[in-house]
């Protein structure tokens, strides 16, 4: 019956007047250096790589490539800072430095948001309202812990680990830097951080902030480069811990590399989250949550709700609502404040997404894509969903890291629990139901580190985040986020 209801047809009439964020007062340097021992310095080999704006394929800047000697210098300066001033000051004084960073991020939030959008392709609405405020909030939150650690771990005399190497991804560049640096500093460690190759600029603006905040030299070192630079950090003998956010594949190789050493680790890896809609759910709200779950940040989200499970009795109506809602998504210039879906982060990632879309079609699933005009240059992928998907399809098993949703159905609670847990991943899951007791039942049965009930993709500095199984280990955020940076023996 419900399938007889006609779909909305926008025919491309869902237009807004453009509202482009101004970049007039913005100055992006032509070249960015390595931030080591409180100074910006050229890489010894003087090698640089380009940073590209993925929405128009133009070069934004050149970024220094750190090689073995640069990495060694960064680790040495972090070690010296740990053995020196940073290791001696009180938690109270450490807190003040971290509060300064939080305040400076807030002061420069507009500039940071624009650069994040130019460098990474994400809509300005998201960088302005989510990435940057959350980065500031993270520093603010962990600043408060610096002099309160004995309450978090009673009877344990928490001690910092030493030098921590941190490697972060390109999907939330500044926010991930904050998630890594803030707890490390609050607990008294020193840091060597490497941003992702395609999104280094905001991390280097953060380096400027850290300099302005007058942190002692060497406490935070930010070095840029590709995977080979990351590898050098991982294998440096004087690093006490590796905190990595990125793909499960790279995470496994890091674990191999540090096996047999005393290095500690936190791994925040991939996901293939189930987003489950029961027949008693508030359906419009659920559809909003599904859209947000998979199309937020072009689907470049490790906890993206990429597997949708709809209870059969409401399948038709949910699918219609979902397709209607997709029609109203605006894909285009990330600097436009109306934009919902920005540019895919890189050429390489676009190829990966396209590969999976082709596989999806080839394996027999039915494709539905938003029929919209895409900009001529840049990397773009329209919001996509597949129906007629089975558990064995690649698009239902593997992480795509793009705006591609695989839709499946279920009849009973037990069936959907089995299907949802049938994955090597376990980062997050979503449940939509009006019945609280059902939500809590699912929350207790789903094997994932974060469960969202009647909401999705919510993040907060006070809330621990991290995965089960091959989605990694360790938690970031909240009191749990302190533990991986402390020795409690």
């Amino acid at each position, binding site marked *: 019956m419900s399938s007889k209801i006609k779909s909305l047809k926008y025919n491309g009439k869902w237009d807004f007047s453009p509202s482009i964020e101004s970049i007039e007062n913005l100055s992006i340097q032509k070249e960015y250096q390595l931030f080591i021992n409180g100074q910006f310095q050229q890489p010894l080999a003087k090698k640089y790589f380009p940073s590209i704006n993925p929405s128009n394929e133009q070069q934004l800047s050149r970024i220094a490539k750190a090689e073995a000697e640069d990495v060694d210098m960064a680790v040495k300066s972090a070690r010296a800072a740990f053995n020196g001033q940073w290791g001696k000051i009180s938690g109270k004084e450490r807190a003040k430095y971290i509060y300064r960073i939080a305040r400076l991020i807030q002061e420069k939030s507009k500039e940071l948001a624009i650069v994040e959008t130019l460098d990474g392709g994400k809509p300005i609405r998201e960088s302005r309202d989510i990435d940057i405020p959350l980065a500031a909030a993270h520093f603010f*939150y962990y*600043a408060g812990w*610096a002099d309160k650690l004995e309450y978090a771990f009673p009877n344990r005399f928490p001690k910092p680990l030493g030098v921590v190497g941190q490697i972060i991804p390109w999907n939330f560049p500044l926010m991930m830097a904050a998630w890594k640096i803030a707890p490390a500093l609050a607990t008294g460690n020193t840091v060597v951080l490497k941003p992702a190759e395609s999104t280094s600029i905001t991390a280097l603006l953060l380096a400027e902030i850290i300099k302005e905040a007058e942190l002692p030299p060497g406490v935070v070192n930010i070095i840029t480069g590709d995977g080979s630079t990351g590898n050098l950090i991982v294998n440096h003998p004087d690093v006490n811990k590796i905190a990595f956010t990125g793909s499960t594949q790279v995470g496994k190789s890091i674990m191999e590399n540090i096996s047999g050493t005393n290095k500690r680790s936190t791994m925040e890896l991939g996901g293939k989250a189930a987003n489950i809609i029961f027949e008693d759910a508030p359906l419009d709200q659920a559809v909003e949550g599904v859209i947000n779950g998979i199309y937020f940040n072009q689907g470049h989200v490790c906890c993206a709700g990429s597997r949708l499970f709809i209870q059969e009795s409401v399948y038709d109506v949910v699918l219609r609502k979902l397709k209607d809602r997709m029609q109203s998504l605006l894909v285009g210039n990330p600097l436009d404040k109306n934009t919902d879906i920005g540019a895919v982060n890189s050429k390489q990632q676009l190829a990966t997404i396209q590969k999976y879309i082709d596989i999806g079609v080839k394996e027999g699933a039915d494709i539905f894509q938003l029929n919209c005009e895409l900009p001529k240059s840049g990397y773009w992928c329209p919001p996509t969903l597949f129906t007629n998907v089975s558990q064995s399809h690649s698009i239902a098993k593997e992480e795509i890291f793009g705006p591609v949703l695989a839709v499946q159905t279920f009849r009973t609670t037990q069936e959907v629990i089995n299907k949802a847990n049938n994955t090597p991943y376990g980062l997050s899951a979503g449940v939509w139901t009006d019945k609280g*007791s059902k939500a809590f*039942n699912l929350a207790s049965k789903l094997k994932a580190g974060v469960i969202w009930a009647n909401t999705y993709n919510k993040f907060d500095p006070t809330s621990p985040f991290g995965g089960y199984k091959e989605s990694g280990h360790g938690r970031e955020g909240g009191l749990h986020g302190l533990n991986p940076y402390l020795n409690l023996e």
Partner: protein
Amino acid sequence: MSKRIKVLKTYKIFIDGKFPRTESGRYTQLKKDNLTIANVCLSSRKDIRNAVLSARNAFESWSSKSAYNRSQILYRIAEMMEGNKNQFIEELILQGEDSNKAILEIDQSIDRIIYFAGWPDKINPIFGSVNPVASSHFNFTILEPMGVLGIVAPEENSLLGLISSIIPAILSGNTCVTIVSEKLPLCAISLAEVISNSDVPNGVVNIITGSKDELAPHLAQHMDVNALGINIDNKELKNQMFFQASNNLKRVVDVSKYKIEDSSFESPYIVKKFMEAKTTWHPIEKDFTSSNNY
């Protein structure tokens, strides 16, 4: 050129974000070396009642702000105090403190605000709990603010003592009416000015000067005050307040046993004393067919 005539500051009280004089029109003269430093309001029962009303009205908005937001507002108070340091130092010296001690006291006061500013979003992770009840229920306990607090700040350490009385009490979302040091009231009014410039909503902090013997019992008896935080040396007055507080079972937190200057004062347990624990039960659906092996 003739000597410039200094403008003298008028010290008033702080109710609902405004700086009125006491409705009673009474004042007392604060003197140093036989010279008048300030005319200080001798507030009345009516002023206390007005202040409690304003604190009650402010409770809803202050306690429903996010912990993060309250945290930032408290941090803002510290920022503003850092900028107004000299004014506080001058007042402390005017009230008889030597300059080194005055500088120490203001530094310690600012740092103490920063310390407590970190707690709003960390109290529940420390003291809240998820309770593993035997039945199929999700059961958790969180701490919530109590409501309106009546605070009597200590006579000595007029600034640090005042900060230490107010900040841990309000950080969880409580609002307060504070009777300040009777003989050293100057910093209290300057603190009110800082608070009024720090995004703290009107009525969250109310500051009353005057005779403690006269005013404190009115706070203790007031039926719309939920708890008292008192730091009083006068044993008789203290006992009287404990007695009067029983009229509506106000919680009474006697802060006088803690040493204000000591860093041991800085603890979340003082915050917890001004909070109530709330436990919520919610059923978890039981699926008897379930056999989950993953």
